[in-house]
């Protein structure tokens, strides 16, 4: 530890005192601790990447980038590709984000913009956050037993009359993209709602009062002042929600139908990367494990790209709001 630079620096009879060496040590110690904690996290991410990357390396050499555009997952021929999985992951997550993001933001506005007495809003908030505590497998079962039977008649009616639109191009028999995306939307709702609420709460109330003072209506104040001001936080809520949707495993494995195909239809079964990993890991042989690690690496890369895009959007919106460009 470095010597206390303030030692002997105190003028006689002063009210203020230089930090004692004890305080000095605590301060330095705490700083060291935080630096350690922060670097440990970075190290951990690096270690995970290194481990997964190392195990994926043989598969990367063997399949190159063709892995990303091949549609087969054939253990017997050791012919692996993950295009349907990438497609299914992005399709289901984007769909979930559109639905969950919309409702999450609506809920956040409802709970923060003086629609409810403060206490009642707190109760609502707690209930929504409880959604986050429900295990994934319970969501999966709920999807199988409640969501699918509920949407099946509607889906098949849409297929009957609008079947020529590619989005409704097949009938819904059971598991499929739409039920999976709906359940996924509910699963990301608490994340989106909670962070959006925090973001909206952070906007000083005076901003709203000022907006009212300029003669805006309530809705103008919310949609044109409050929400844009909180846009940075709301965008990060969306990014986090999307990240959660990308990595969600069990509920999707139960609901998406795990079919290795690419289809625009909302009612057709599909497959996601996380679900592929979960269902194939336990029984995979050496070469399949390498391919799965490659797939895991791709999933990590997708998450990274999404996060970076989120940060970029955040920076741009904040710049625009603060008037600098």
């Amino acid at each position, binding site marked *: 530890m470095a010597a206390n630079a303030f030692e002997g620096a105190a003028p006689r009879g002063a009210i203020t005192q230089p930090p004692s060496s004890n305080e000095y040590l605590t301060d330095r110690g705490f700083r060291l601790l935080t630096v350690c904690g922060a670097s440990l996290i970075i190290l951990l991410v690096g270690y*995970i990447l290194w*481990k997964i990357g190392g195990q994926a390396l043989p598969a990367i050499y063997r399949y190159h980038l063709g892995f990303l555009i091949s549609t*087969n*997952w*054939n*253990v*017997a021929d050791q012919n692996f590709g993950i295009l349907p999985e990438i497609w299914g992951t992005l399709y289901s997550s984007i769909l979930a984000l559109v639905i969950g993001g919309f409702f999450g933001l609506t809920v956040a506005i409802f709970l923060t913009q003086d629609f409810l007495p403060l206490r009642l809003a707190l109760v609502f908030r707690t209930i929504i956050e409880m959604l986050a505590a429900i295990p994934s497998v319970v969501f999966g*079962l709920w999807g*199988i*037993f409640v969501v*699918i*039977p509920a949407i099946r008649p509607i889906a098949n009616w849409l297929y009957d009359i609008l079947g020529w639109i590619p989005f409704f191009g*097949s*009938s819904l*028999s*059971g*598991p*499929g993209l739409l039920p999976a995306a709906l359940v996924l939307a509910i699963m990301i709702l608490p994340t989106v709602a909670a962070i959006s609420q925090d973001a909206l709460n952070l906007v000083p109330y005076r901003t709203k009062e000022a907006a009212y003072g300029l003669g805006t209506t309530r809705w103008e104040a919310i949609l044109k002042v409050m929400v844009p001001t909180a846009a940075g936080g709301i965008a990060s809520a969306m990014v986090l929600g999307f990240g959660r949707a990308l*990595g*969600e*495993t069990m509920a999707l*494995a*139960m609901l998406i*139908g*795990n*079919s*290795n*195909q690419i*289809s625009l*239809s909302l*009612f*057709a*079964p599909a497959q996601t*990367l*996380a*679900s592929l*990993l*979960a*269902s*194939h*890991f*336990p*029984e*995979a*042989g050496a070469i399949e494990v390498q391919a799965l690690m490659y797939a*895991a690496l791709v*999933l*990590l890369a997708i998450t990274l790209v999404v996060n970076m895009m989120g940060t970029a959007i955040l920076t741009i919106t904040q710049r625009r709001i603060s008037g600098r460009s």
Partner: protein
Amino acid sequence: MYWRAPFAVFFIVVAIAVSPGKVAAQNVKLIGSGASFPFPIYSAWFKDFSKKNDGVTVDYQAKGSGAGIQDFTNRTVDFAGSDAAMTDEEIAKVTDGVVLLPVTAGEIVLAYNLPGNPKDLKLPRDVYPDIFLGKVTKWNDPKIVAANPSLKLPDLQITVVRRSDASGTNFVFTKHLSAISPEFAKEVGSGTTVQWPKSDKIVAAPKNDGVTATIKQTPGAIGYIEYGYAKLTKADFALLQNKAGQFVLADTKSGQATLATATLDSRLRGWIEDPAGPDAYPIATFTWLLAYKKQDAKKADWLRKLVEYCVTTGQSISDSMGYIPLPENVVAKIKTASAQIQ
């Protein structure tokens, strides 16, 4: 998420590495992992065995046959379970020698969900492989109607439900379909995971319970599950036409007739791809317990006792748990083979 699996493996390895060392002085702890197909009966057996023998604990983790063989080869377990036994190459990797014991057997049924719950649906040999190839797509297909003149079959699309995870159930089922349908053998083949035809009407669900739940919730669905699960959930399952041309319902009797046709090799391996007997149910299989020939004397002693328990007292609950009690000659062979565990 995707890092859960390695983490879980890590914790299991730690648990395995730490636990026996601490307790070995006083107690015996046998740890196994592998096939999920026999998990219900294994857990019942091992619980009962641990209860009856003070100081002995037997733990079994249903990770899947492949993972079980891997653990067994890496010596992280005391025994393992596998639906596919072990190949000669895999056996060669285990320096301490391997004893393969077919301690129980099960059947795979085709469970279905049809409006009005018609019972005793009959599926001919040339039809059910085609259903799983996605070629027979309607329940009122003339071939199905012809085999079931007494049933009123709806004009409904068949939704095939398959396993999404690799499994011994897949292995046994696809092996049977490949044996009876050359086209299935060519287009899909057999294995713990296979490339199923791409179709909107072939969906996959994880594990036996996932497949069962999906069938139960999907009108027009058909899928393959273990007999035990079908029994437990009271699902309707089809009578299948066997090699002799008879329509047979899966139960203990027809299962035993199937096992009687099995020939086991010197390592007690043997698959029943297409049994010939007139009463034999077409899709049944043994599942194997893997043990080392050489190990700690105390563990070997208890392992032998465990095997003895499984093939004697244990067999009495087979029936109620949806497994097939072993034929006498197989029990005798297992008893002889288990003497090799030293």
